[in-house]
């Protein structure tokens, strides 16, 4: 007779050697539509850059990734913040129904608030070592990489970011690195800092003005070693977190900041108004 413990071991073995390993190597965000866009989730151990302007939903996306990791997939996580104080993050998370303090008490989550220069310390004990020993995290969020730039001589960001990304990968963690882009800017300045080569995946969040209202858009700009959805998708921040909706299929020029309806849409509209006049 198979005991539950041996059944678990058998299942794990089977998963690893019968193709299940491929699924296991995907790190699901737990946001169904985003995981579909990513063809199953981020690649295991990847460094993901989430870029966007202030208020675009970067922190919400990152927290949801960590909370879902803990609650849905049993993967502990660390959130490192340089700017926002933890009490603010606990409060904001609670508004989405995520009790971070409880997860901390259960040793599934750690929120570390520190100065960027301490994460950059290269000698002796690393800032994250204690938390890593305590909760054995599989996911981590660094909020934000752009904040590190202020503490580094010009041109050193790429080198230091590489060291941090390598450290996180060595420790077996899948990371989200937040990058704050300028407000309403047309590019994400990620390429200027030379970070796009360093990370394995780039998710861009962008506010877009259409017909005098601001909407939020999400796009996967890059995903090393995997196919991904190329469409620019609309998303909302709902009371339970991020909800990704349909693509902006009737518009073009959204990324450049000059959205306009595609020609076919214009034609349909003209045809409709003309036929209404003839009625």
């Amino acid at each position, binding site marked *: 007779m198979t005991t539950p413990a041996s059944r678990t071991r058998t299942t794990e073995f089977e998963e690893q050697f019968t193709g299940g390993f491929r699924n296991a190597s995907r790190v699901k965000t737990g946001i169904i539509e985003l995981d579909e866009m990513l063809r199953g989730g981020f690649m295991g151990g990847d460094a993901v850059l989430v870029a966007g302007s202030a208020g675009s939903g970067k922190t919400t996306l990152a927290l949801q990734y960590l909370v879902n990791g803990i609650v849905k997939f049993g993967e502990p996580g660390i959130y490192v913040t340089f700017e926002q*104080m*933890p*009490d603010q993050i606990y409060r904001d998370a609670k508004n989405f129904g995520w009790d971070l303090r409880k997860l*901390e008490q259960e040793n599934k989550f*750690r*929120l*570390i*608030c*520190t*100065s960027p*220069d*301490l994460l950059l*310390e*290269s*000698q*002796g*004990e*690393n*800032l994250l070592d204690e938390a890593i020993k305590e909760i054995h995290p599989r996911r981590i969020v660094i909020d934000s990489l752009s904040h590190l730039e202020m503490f580094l001589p010009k041109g050193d960001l790429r080198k230091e970011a590489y060291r941090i990304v390598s450290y996180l990968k060595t420790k077996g963690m899948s990371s989200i690195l937040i990058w704050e882009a300028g407000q309403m800017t047309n590019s994400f300045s990620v390429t200027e800092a030379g970070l796009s080569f360093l990370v394995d995946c780039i998710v861009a969040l962008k506010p877009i003005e259409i017909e005098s209202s601001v909407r939020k858009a999400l796009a996967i700009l890059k995903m090393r070693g995997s196919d991904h959805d190329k469409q620019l998708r609309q998303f909302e921040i709902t009371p339970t977190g991020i909800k990704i909706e349909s693509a902006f299929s009737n518009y073009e020029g959204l990324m450049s900041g000059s959205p306009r309806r595609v020609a076919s849409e214009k034609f349909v509209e003209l045809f409709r108004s003309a036929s209404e006049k003839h009625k």
Partner: protein
Amino acid sequence: MNEATQLITTLLSSDVKGELLVLFHRNTGLVDTVEGVARRIGRTGLSIENDVRDLVKLGVLKTKKIGTSEVILLDRNKDREVLETVANHVKTVKGAGN
């Protein structure tokens, strides 16, 4: 003066200690240098140094070496003990007053 009274006297001996206690209790994951912590309560490193030392002596805060920097953080276990001592003392004082 008993141990609990001495503890409470030290905790309440300055505004800065109060500010530090509130800061670390609300933000249990805060790990920073004296300068960094001071910035978060709108003060300078020099002006909080003595109070930090007192709280480290009490065991509420602890220090740690990260690379070349010395950081301070909340000692969660010791802090729980201190809170219990204060709570028990308040209960005793209240009881005696009734």
